[in-house]
């Protein structure tokens, strides 16, 4: 850990003179780790530079950019966060010319904590740490192995705990709409808790995450009811990869498949009738 | 030196020893390392398929399974015999193409504790590897005794260019791979129109009259083109054209004497190897006279020179299709 921290600090110090600020984690007052914008004016703050626990840096970036769309920044991002930034770029939500990516490679225990399949960056020119292999996700496998009634019971129980705090949406780097479909009563029923089953809220959200979710698991982390909603996203991401050969955040110019016409073989893989 | 998995096939042990010896002699200077599959079995030729399809494919697949076991990182099987090449390639193709069929064959293999993953290995003929992997430049580097003055009819037979599951040859009926190789050896290559016609196959055994007709067609056509040597890439073709040439002559009351050699034998000569080490002398129609010409570099007798066709101005011909045409077509 120390090793990566030192290298990271060095990297940030090198980058700082060329940008208006570097977005990374800092141990704040009360020992709480949170995203912080380090600036060259206050480089002493780098003493408080932190790596873990993971906090939603792209989400903070989203907020900063809303106020200062032309800010020239650098950001320390892990594999998932980098993918999030790529997807935001692909959805025209930020300008990568103004953004320097500092890739932070996760370590084994971190990857296991996140059940992460890709705990490494691929686009960042500057990187800190050594990339490691991904780990399998036991929870996703467990849920997938359930029978249909078991799945139904499992999710019914999980969704019953949802208090519709919108926390999962708010923290998601991919939820950048001004007005959210989840707040439209055409789709999501209002004024009822627990929400009626099936949960329109969670299913609509899962559909919106198709070809967008970068598997950062911030939603699960932030959820006060501990709903493992990213399981849906991960399973669907796998299907999308198999059917349409698309992976969110993997490439800068590949468009989400559901926007495009069928390519050869895609129809056959979609499972639709011939 | 690149290593390849080597499947020699039964003929190489018996009737085509000349092929075996010459293959070994030319692969070395070309940097082709051959690792023979241990305990390979017969590919079944065309006969087992005729009797019982599933066992026939299982028989072939045992070789593929052995090759996969012994692959040691290599991905290509070289089979110098066209029939073996096609059988191995075909089994791999159908096991890959037809999942249910692949599973059935693997079920049979499982009875012997074996398994083959369809598509895992590429099955290729030695000619294809020399042209497309080693390259003609490397061949030319090794030529010390160009085959100048030797008129050769390149003869491929059927099973190499057809059905060509791997799309490795320039054409299914008039491929130019062997022509280019022989030209690189310095020989005078005849545009042999029947280069992929049938040698008679097993018809020599089951319907000799039909077989003699096919052999006659090939030999007489080669003779009409003033051929010194017919070059083959397959033991079966060589056997039918060479060993049965005499019987065919009896049948048709003709007296053709065209030696039929393996392409590797001529490569060996051009590479400066000794003829004895290349299996010369085992052919029925002696090639000694033809080869002696190259050895001494004697100019060809005037009367043997090919009769040039009289040229009249005439109408222009369409240009022949080029490699670019093929690529463009594939792109469409």
């Amino acid at each position: 850990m120390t090793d990566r921290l030192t290298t990271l600090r060095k990297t940030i110090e090198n980058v700082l003179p060329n940008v208006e600020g570097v977005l990374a984690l800092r141990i704040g007052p009360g020992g709480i780790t949170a995203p912080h914008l380090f600036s060259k004016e206050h480089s002493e703050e780098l003493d408080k530079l932190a790596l873990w626990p993971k906090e939603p840096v792209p989400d903070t970036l989203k907020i900063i950019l809303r106020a200062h769309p032309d800010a020239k920044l650098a950001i320390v991002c892990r594999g998932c966060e980098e993918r999030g930034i790529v997807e935001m770029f692909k959805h025209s939500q930020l300008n990568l010319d103004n953004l320097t990516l500092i890739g932070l490679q996760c370590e084994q225990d971190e990857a296991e904590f996140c059940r992460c399949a890709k705990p490494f960056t691929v686009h960042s020119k500057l990187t800190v740490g050594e990339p490691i292999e991904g780990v399998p996700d036991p929870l996703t496998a467990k849920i997938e192995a359930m029978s249909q009634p078991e799945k139904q019971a499992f999710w019914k129980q999980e969704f019953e705990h949802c208090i519709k705090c919108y926390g999962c949406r708010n923290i998601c780097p991919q939820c950048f709409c001004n007005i959210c479909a989840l707040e439209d009563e055409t789709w999501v029923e209002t004024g009822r808790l627990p929400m009626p089953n099936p949960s329109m809220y969670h299913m609509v959200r899962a559909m919106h995450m198709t070809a967008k979710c970068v598997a950062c698991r911030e939603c699960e982390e932030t959820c006060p009811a501990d709903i493992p909603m990213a399981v849906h996203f991960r399973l669907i991401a796998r299907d999308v990869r198999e059917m349409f050969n698309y992976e969110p955040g993997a490439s800068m110019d590949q468009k989400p498949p559901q926007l495009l016409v069928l390519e050869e073989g895609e129809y056959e893989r979609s499972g639709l009738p011939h | 030196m690149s290593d390849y998995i080597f499947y020699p096939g039964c003929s190489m042990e018996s009737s085509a020893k000349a092929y075996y010896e010459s293959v070994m002699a030319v692969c070395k200077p070309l940097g082709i390392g051959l690792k023979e599959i241990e305990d390979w079995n017969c590919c079944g030729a065309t006969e087992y398929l005729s009797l019982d399809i599933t066992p026939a494919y299982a028989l072939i697949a045992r070789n593929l399974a052995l090759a996969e076991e012994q692959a040691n990182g290599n991905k290509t099987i070289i089979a110098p015999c066209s029939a073996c090449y096609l059988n191995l390639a075909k089994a791999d193709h159908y096991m890959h193409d037809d999942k249910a069929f692949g599973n059935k064959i693997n079920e049979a293999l499982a009875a012997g504790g074996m398994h083959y993953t369809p598509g895992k290995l590429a099955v290729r003929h030695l000619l294809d590897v020399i042209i497309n992997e080693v390259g003609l430049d490397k061949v030319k580097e090794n030529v010390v005794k160009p085959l100048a003055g030797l008129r050769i009819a390149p003869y491929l037979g059927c099973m190499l260019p057809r059905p060509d599951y791997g799309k490795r040859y320039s054409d299914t009926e008039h491929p130019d791979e062997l022509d280019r190789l022989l030209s690189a050896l310095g020989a005078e290559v005849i545009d042999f129109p029947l280069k992929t016609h049938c040698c008679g196959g097993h018809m020599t055994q089951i319907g000799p009259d039909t077989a003699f007709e096919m052999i006659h067609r090939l030999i007489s056509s080669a003779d009409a083109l003033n051929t010194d040597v017919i070059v083959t890439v397959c033991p079966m073709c060589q056997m039918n054209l060479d060993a049965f040439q005499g019987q065919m002559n009896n049948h048709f009351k003709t007296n053709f004497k065209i030696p039929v050699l393996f392409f590797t034998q001529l490569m060996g000569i051009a590479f400066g190897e000794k003829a004895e080490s290349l299996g010369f002398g085992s052919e029925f129609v002696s090639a000694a006279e033809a080869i002696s010409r190259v050895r001494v570099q004697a100019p060809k007798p005037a009367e043997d020179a090919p009769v040039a066709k009289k040229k009249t101005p005439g109408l222009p011909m369409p240009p022949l299709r080029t490699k670019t045409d093929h690529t463009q077509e594939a792109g469409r």
Partner: protein
Amino acid sequence: MYEPKIIGFLCNWCSYRGADTAGMARMKYPPNVKIIRVPCSGRISPELVLRSFREGADGVILLGCHIGDCHYATGNHRTAKRMPVLKKLMEYTGIEPERLYINWVSAAEGEKFTTVIKEFTETISALPPFVETMK
């Protein structure tokens, strides 16, 4: 035995006309399906399908022009890419994915339309009512 409630989203150009063709030929099929006409199957967002279930539909059937024959050239290509994902999501959430069915029916295929509706109604009848499974 309950009467399943089925919502059918049909594109205006092929499938809706296919249903008309079935009618003109007086082919019979169960009355459970209520057809909603949309310009193109590509118009149907996953939200609309989910909302149908939420409203108590036991099954949703989505019919469009055959791939390659779309009145809007490639509108149905998007359907063919969105809806399989929704079916997967339903599966992962414990909803029988067969409650959502996608197929292609041209204006001439009255018979296919009838068969598709019959088979789908049978499939849905074999499942418990959706509301009950969600209780």
